[in-house]
């Protein structure tokens, strides 16, 4: 970028009018639909996809990103670097991959080892982003330690969070539970699988992540 990189017209405009560019991390526990959502965002706005999706947890074990995804909302737009992160967990048991998903012992151990490294990578990326799209499975309890920890961390840093209450195409989903659990953040019910309500999600992403905020560092 060089010496003059910081004084571009864009950066001046950004200082005056709020953000035009933001690095957004897609976070959440394993298997909530982060990559499905990342793929949908990319397909809708770039024609590309992010990565592979699987019903087996910890499919994404390295962070992947796509730079400069332009998302529009009527007259305004926001360029986002979208980072799809590995699922965050407090435990990884290779036996689950064997017993529930039929992987061989070697495959299961390898997947578990990479999954633990993926969690560490996700946590490291928290230092480097401007906002988070926190994906939750709206068929499950919202107050998991992973959700609480990620939210607490972002609140302490004063970073904007948008909660995507995913999988609302499923009968047992309860997006209202998520809304009342986290009244301090916008909660958008979506189905990353069917695309239901993605327009509202995009509109909210542009407005919420464009806001100027003072970033707190640790």
């Amino acid at each position, binding site marked *: 970028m060089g010496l003059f990189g910081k004084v571009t017209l864009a950066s001046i405009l950004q200082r005056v009018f709020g953000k035009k560019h933001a690095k957004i991390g897609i976070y959440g526990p394993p298997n909530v639909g982060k990559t499905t959502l990342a793929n949908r965002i990319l397909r809708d706005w770039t024609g590309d996809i992010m990565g592979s999706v699987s019903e087996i947890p910890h499919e994404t074990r390295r962070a992947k990103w796509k730079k400069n995804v332009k998302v529009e909302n009527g007259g305004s737009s926001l360029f986002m670097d979208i980072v799809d992160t590995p699922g*965050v*967990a*407090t*435990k*990884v*048991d*290779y036996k689950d991959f064997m017993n529930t998903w039929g992987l061989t012992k070697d495959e299961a*151990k390898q997947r*578990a*080892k990479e999954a*633990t*490294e993926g*969690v*560490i990578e996700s*946590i490291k990326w*928290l230092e480097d982003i401007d906002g988070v799209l926190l994906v939750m499975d709206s068929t499950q*309890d919202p*107050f*998991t*330690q*992973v959700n*609480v*920890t*990620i*939210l*607490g*961390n972002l*609140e*302490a840093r*004063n970073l904007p969070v948008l909660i995507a209450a995913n999988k609302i195409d499923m009968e047992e989903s309860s997006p209202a539970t998520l809304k009342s*659990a986290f009244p*301090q953040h916008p909660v958008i019910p979506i189905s990353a699988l069917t695309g239901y309500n993605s327009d509202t999600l995009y509109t909210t992403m542009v407005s919420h992540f464009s806001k100027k905020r003072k970033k707190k560092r*640790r």
Partner: protein
Amino acid sequence: MAKKENEISFNLVSRHKLDELTSSEKLRFILKEVKKGKILVLEHGLTPFEQTNLIENTMKEIEQDTFIGVEMEGLGQDRPSFFQKLFGYSRKPRVTLIGPANLLKTIRKDNDMIQTKIIPGRGAK
């Protein structure tokens, strides 16, 4: 692998003891106890940054056949007051239950109650 006993130790750790330790000492203490198979109740919960560090350290310490990670649940602060909301606050847990994931299992959690089960026969020596 060490022989496991039927009795499970359950330790209540005072706010005083926790406050005496630095963040990294606290995390080291917790992980050491939990790896021994103990369940801890911390009178004073961890900050959000301590929580993420604990998850990170846990991932580094996982040993596939003996230590699969932790189960951790905290009861949050009371609902924020108007002023706390206005000036931004982070919800620091008041009390936190933490134990080895092969032993302690969260069944349900909401703002008012944490329901857990202890899987018998896997206690600490």
